Each structure stands twice: as structure tokens, then as C-alpha cells.
């Protein structure tokens, strides 16, 4: 059986002069929606657990991570940040100055 298409025909309007920003707006709004999807499941999960006699939210607030768990979360955070911000790393390597004409500019650019 055929299904309704998900997308409208034709071009989408472009609002920003810089190419790519319209697409990023879509990404940001979709991500925000998915944050709410996760948040709501979490919220309902705590309520359902509460009905079963488990006070999840109190448990979450008072939980103390042990050393191993803290390390695991630290690794997760670092990897998340690196993954999200990686596009800034590629173009602006540590040894490359951002502006032309600075002393030493480009010396180590290849090494980066």
C-alpha cells in the first residue's frame, strides 16, 4: 500500500544570505524537538516508576557516582564535545594563526 509522502514538493525558501545556515536552522530545531522527546520519556518514566513504588527522581538527585562511573561520564562528555566541535578543529589548527600577516603564520600549518 502506498503511503503519504513526508516532504512537500518544490524548493524550500532560503532566508539566510550565507549558504548552509537555513539547513543548520532545520538541524537545530529538529534536535530541540528530539531533546523534548527524550525529556518527556524520562519524565513519564519517573512517574511510572513512582506509581510502582520507586521514587526515581529522589534516587537520581541523591545518587553519588563512584570513581569509575564519574570517569565513564567524563569520557562521554569529552567525546561528545570533541565530536560536536570537531569542525572548528579542522580549519583552525592550534599552530595556525587565524589572520594573515602574523609572524610565524603558516610555518607549522602543514604539521597541524
Amino acid at each position, binding site marked *: 500500500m502506498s503511503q503519504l509522502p*513526508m516532504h*512537500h514538493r518544490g524548493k524550500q525558501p532560503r532566508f539566510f544570505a550565507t549558504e548552509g545556515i537555513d539547513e543548520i*536552522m*532545520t538541524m537545530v530545531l529538529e534536535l530541540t524537538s528530539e531533546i523534548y522527546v527524550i525529556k*518527556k520519556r524520562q519524565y513519564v518514566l519517573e512517574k511510572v516508576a513512582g506509581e510502582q513504588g520507586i521514587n526515581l527522581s529522589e534516587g537520581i538527585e541523591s545518587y553519588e557516582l563512584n570513581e569509575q562511573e564519574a570517569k565513564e561520564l567524563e569520557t562521554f562528555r569529552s567525546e561528545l564535545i570533541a565530536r560536536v566541535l570537531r569542525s572548528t578543529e579542522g580549519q583552525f589548527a592550534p599552530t595556525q594563526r587565524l589572520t594573515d600577516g602574523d609572524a610565524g603564520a603558516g610555518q607549522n600549518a602543514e604539521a597541524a
Partner: protein
Amino acid sequence: MINKLPHDLAIAPDCDERSRQEFVASLRHHTIDGMAAHMRNRYDKVVKPEFEKVEGREPANGEEVHDVMLGDTYFQFYSATRYNAQQMAHHAVIPMINRELESTNSTAQSLRDKEDVGGSVQLNKDVEIPRSVSSIDVHLTPGSYHGEVTENDSSAGSLYENFINVFAFNIMGPDMNDIGQSFSQFVKNVHPEFKPEKILDCGCTIGLNTLPWAQNFPEAEVTAIDVAPGMLRYGSARAKALGAPVNFVQMDATSIDLPDNSVDLVFSSMFLHELPLKDIRKYMKEAFRVLKPGGLFLTMELPSNSKMGPYESFYLDWDCFYNKEPYYKPFRDQDYTQLISDAGFNKDSFFEVELPRYTFTPHEEFVARAKQGPVFDNSTGRFSEDIRWYGFGVWKDAEA
């Protein structure tokens, strides 16, 4: 803010689908309310003064405001958010509609077959879908309004109702019928001497705003026409589910298959701005022809640009440029009195109304406000919790 549809065609979203629908409804509210107000503020405090400094005058009309706002970053954010919210509203409901497609079509057929409620549906394969509907996905609707994906398909109607349920974030009330409710209550209370026996709703889609006419004028025969078969299949099933006797007919309003002088009231809502000007003129001539002497042509729409200030015109014309509704501005640039006069109506019988939302307004307050004329301010036609629906009408001369 997301209501469960009040009838047997309702589809139950799963938890994540429901979350996406709730999110988009809130995003729509944020855009239309907070962001719109911020953009207005920015126009008044920054954009207009800068224009005045350069040009030595205020922007003269909506076009000039649009031109200068195009380069403003906040307009870009507002527009991108509003456009994306529109798309996301469709994306939030289509998966569940597709999942229940077979079941919805089967339920719709069973409802249409019910004999304990009046009303009917009549489809006609000879009715051509106008290019204004078939060539673009109007209102960014995937498949446009006339789409059919299978035999005996009601999915276009299901998409329309479920989309509006998210898009309108309860502005139109839980039954999404406030426009029809407000306009039928206007006629009933401001013109109590008028007792229409035959009411025709043109461009009805699924009949959201048709049903209040049947409910508020139970003695009248109510007919609703549209070119889109899927909408009519769904609409007639929905009307039966809600106990409202309406005859849904596949018909093009530019060629109404009814005799001259046979209808007491011709109504439409959010219809004219979907039509090319030439089709608006044809429709109005047809309305004039089928109306009995003394009958009423009444339409809910957006106000003419000639009545709005430059910023309000620009704001209300957004859909023309970014929502695949290309006929919006050409219609709103018209002189509505000239349009009805060209169709044969008497200009002197033309009137305008601004109605508060009947669903949310105490009855006496509604009637008092309905009797006043329009004021054309920031709430006229602007989709928000303060909205006043704009409409215009004309009585056909008693001696035609």
C-alpha cells in the same frame, strides 16, 4: 494543547509521536506569539528608523516593509523557524497516519455507510483538480490537498485534520471549528430575521467550519463542496461521526452545479486566498447566480491590504512568499467591494465584520462585538490568542 480528535477517526500517536506534536505546537505558539512580537518591536525600534534615515519617509506599503526586512537577521530567524515549524507539523503526524492508513480508510467507509445520521457524499471523477491545487503542495502539504495514495482514500483529510490539530495549537477550539461557529453565530444573532433553508459552503476541505452551520441552523439543508475527493471522503465520515447532517459533493466552486436562485447562503472560509484572481471572479459570479434574491454571500478571509498598515500587510502576506500560497497577496491586494461588484452584487450592500472567537468569548460579549464594525488593528486576522476573524459579505438584492 494537542486535543484528542473527538470522533472515531482519531489516531492514537505513540509516546514519541505525541511528544513531537506537542513540541511543534509549542514551537508554533512561540513563533506566532513571542517571535512575532519581538520582530514587530525590532521593526518599530530599529528597522523603520533606519529606513526613515535613508529614505526620509516611512515605508509606504507591505512590499517596502518586506524588502527592508529581508536583510534583517531577526526576520530571517523568525521566518526560518516558522517555515520549519510548518514542515515539522506535517512530519509529526504523517508517520501515524501512514501506520493507520488502512484502518482509517475502513473506519471512514463504515461511518459514511451509517444510516442513522443524515448527510451524504457524492464524488465525481469528471471534476478536474485545478492547477492551483495540483501543481504545488499548498501550505507545504506533502501531496497537496487533493492527494490520494490508495483506493477509497481518506488520508488527505486525515492529514489535514491532524495537521491543523498541531498547527492551530487550540486557537480554533477543540473541534477546530471556531471560524464556522463564529460566522454562523454572527448570522444567527446579528441577523435573526434571516432563516436560510439552503446553505452552501465552498472549498470546504473536511468540513471543519461547515458543521457549525448544520448545528446552528438545524432546519437548513447544508451542502459542502470541494474538488478534493480524499477530503470529502474523510469530511463526510467525520460529519457522520459527529452527528451533523451535511451533503458533501465533489464540485468546483468556479462551476457550481446548482440552479440559479436556489441557495440562501453561500459561505467560504480561508478559500479565496487559495484561488488565482480569475477563479475568484468566476466563483463570485457563480455565487451571485445561485443565490436567491435576498440571499447572503459571506466569506471569512484575511483583510485587504488597503485596510492594513504597511507592517500589518507585510506580516499577513508572509504565507504568500514562504508557505506555497502564491495567490495570497494578489487576492489581498484587491479592493473587495470592487470584486463583489464585478460579480453582480450591489456595492451598497457590502459589509465587513470582525468577530472574536465564539468558542472562547461569552455569548453576550460576542454578540455585542459582532454588531460593531471592524477596527483593522494588530489583532485583525493575525493568528494568535487575540485573533479577531475578519470577514466580508454582501446581500444579493431582493429584486435581482
